[in-house]
């Protein structure tokens, strides 16, 4: 069954409004009461054509859940997701299918995300087959094209994933994601598992592909330097919410949220001469089941005042395109 792909319109490629995704953690035998994990709690953003939105935050902040929910790999609890102008929030599998072609994902771990029993060519061409895009011969031709585009050799088409290095496997994952000519690719920590010298190769490739095919990326990562390099705009998440959102230049030059400040301060800079002033936050991220009242960050915030403990700050625009959720800024 072949559905015609929706046309790429002029509006935003992706519009996410008030997205929520809750998980109910099962009650354990002797453990505490069943809790609700507010993994994503009211997140809104848009991504334009040819744009990269960086989504940063520490483990458990919900950034990967945003990516998976946007792709409808997880069922959203609330909110709307529009892809190329169409509401896909509640579409069921058959109706969703044409939209699936338009959005793809690249995973962090190129070791576990590729089927070890499939050849590289079959992995890269699998989606073409699933979506009935082309005949076998066409498919072979297309896979060969993809291979050379992502920097793999054509004679590697018959090889199995274990015969590739980490960087090559990530190239293979990218070839697979590109095969259906998507509009949006969710990149979930795509370079975190790679060595430094290989990381640069993959980042450059992703940027080249964006320029060439007009792709939009939702780039999820914990490495701020990588996000800064590849993104146009950046959203900072903390415990399921966006706490700051700005153009990347603005965000890195003029961070407003205390959490963003401390994240930027904590990044080790490869320059031994740099004397840093550190505003390192204390303690750990609180549990997403039992979140602090008021501003979720107040337990670690060096500037917190009484109001922060009771009142939840709204995400408001403080400069054109620069939004922050903090009572004090």
């Amino acid at each position: 069954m072949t559905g015609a792909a929706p046309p790429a319109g002029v509006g935003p490629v992706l519009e996410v409004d008030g997205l929520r995704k809750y998980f109910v953690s099962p009650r354990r035998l002797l453990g505490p009461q069943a809790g609700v994990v507010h993994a994503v709690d009211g997140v809104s953003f848009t991504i334009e054509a040819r744009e990269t939105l960086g989504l940063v935050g520490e483990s458990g902040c919900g950034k990967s859940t945003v990516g998976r929910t946007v792709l409808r790999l997880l069922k959203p609890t609330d909110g709307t997701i529009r892809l190329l102008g169409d509401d896909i929030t509640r579409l069921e599998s058959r109706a969703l299918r044409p939209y699936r072609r338009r959005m793809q994902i690249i995973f962090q771990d190129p070791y576990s995300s590729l089927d070890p029993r499939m050849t590289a060519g079959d992995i890269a061409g699998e989606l073409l087959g699933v979506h009935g895009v082309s005949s076998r011969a066409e498919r072979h031709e297309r896979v060969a094209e993809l291979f050379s585009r992502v920097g793999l050799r054509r004679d590697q088409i018959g090889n199995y994933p274990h015969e590739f290095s980490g960087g090559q496997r990530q190239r293979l994952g990218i070839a697979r994601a590109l095969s259906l000519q998507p509009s949006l690719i969710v990149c979930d920590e795509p370079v975190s598992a790679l060595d430094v010298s290989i990381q640069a190769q993959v980042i450059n490739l992703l940027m080249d592909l964006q320029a060439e095919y007009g792709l939009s990326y939702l780039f999820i990562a914990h490495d701020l330097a990588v996000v800064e390099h590849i993104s146009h705009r950046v959203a900072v998440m903390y415990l399921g919410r966006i706490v700051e959102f700005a153009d990347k230049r603005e965000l890195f030059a003029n961070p407003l949220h205390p959490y963003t400040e401390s994240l930027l301060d904590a990044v080790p800079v490869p320059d031994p001469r740099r004397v840093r002033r550190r505003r390192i936050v204390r303690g750990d991220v609180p549990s997403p089941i039992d979140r602090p009242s008021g501003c979720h960050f107040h337990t670690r915030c060096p500037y917190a005042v009484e109001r922060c403990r009771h009142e939840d700050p709204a995400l408001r625009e403080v400069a054109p395109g620069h939004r922050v959720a903090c009572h004090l800024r």
Partner: protein
Amino acid sequence: MDQAGTPGTSGFGDVVLEVDDLVTTFRTPDGVAPAVDGVSFEVRAGETLGVVGESGCGKSVTALSILGLVPSPPGCVERGTALLGDRDLLALPERTLADVRGNEIAMIFQEPMTSLNPVLTVGYQIAETVRRHDGGTRPGAMRRAVEMLDLVGIPEAQRRAREYPHQLSGGMRQRAMIAMALSCEPKVLIADEPTTALDVTIQAQVLDLIRELQGRLGTAVILITHDLGVIAETAHRVVVMYAGRKVEEADVTTLFDAPRHPYTRGLLASVPTLDALRDGAAGERRLAEIPGVVPKLTGLPDGCAFAPRCPLADGRCASTRPAFEEQRPGHSAACWHAHTAREAAREAGQ
């Protein structure tokens, strides 16, 4: 060896660990892999030696070899010495070495969850280490454990000491590991990617903690990492490894300012940094790439192991292995083109 007044090492105490010509191999289905191939270095009291390199460069195997923890077979420490004081760790019988480990030289690993025993409380595990080495009483050792947990900044140390590893967060587990490693005030602490599994704000806390304790206890630290940012902020001197060999060594400022080995230069250029934007540099930048991949250790070329990926490589590089030579006092590199590399760096305005 002249140990007096080398630039970058002054201000530290005596040499506490001296590793010389270490060779460790692994038997693999494809042949014998020289995981560590003739590595030498020393570290002084109060000094942090950074060891940097990519996966498979031999940085972790170097640490495991020193501690006698290389699984054998397939691994084998073939050659070399590791002098801690006047004793060669590589020649000690396992029984004696077990007394040294944890007591005079301790190690922390990347993933604390795999190095802590899940069915024993954190306090008990630290107390065991203490008792193993000073033979004190159980209550005394437990008090020491709580003291150590408190020292590494774990809140409510008394209560946490009675908890199991899974009840602690990742950052707290790594703190507990550090508490255990430092409980006997070792002369040398080997930290193998101690913050790689941690979030960036927790990483900053843990690195600050290691630095602070080092200042207080005068511990010599060997910090193994792939993260050049961590190296720049934490290490005093740096060893760069590639394919089992040491390719460059210098004090940290010299290494970042004037790297001589093309591999070091490639690494430094390929890392995206936050500074460019903060300093108002131009927007669209392309990261420098090191072409190709790290070679398989079983099929290393005769000459320089980096030659197949090196922009400066010529016939000599392919055929003859360059010696690890001092380029200027305190700065050594193994490259036929170390001088060319310096010229190129200058031209590029680095």
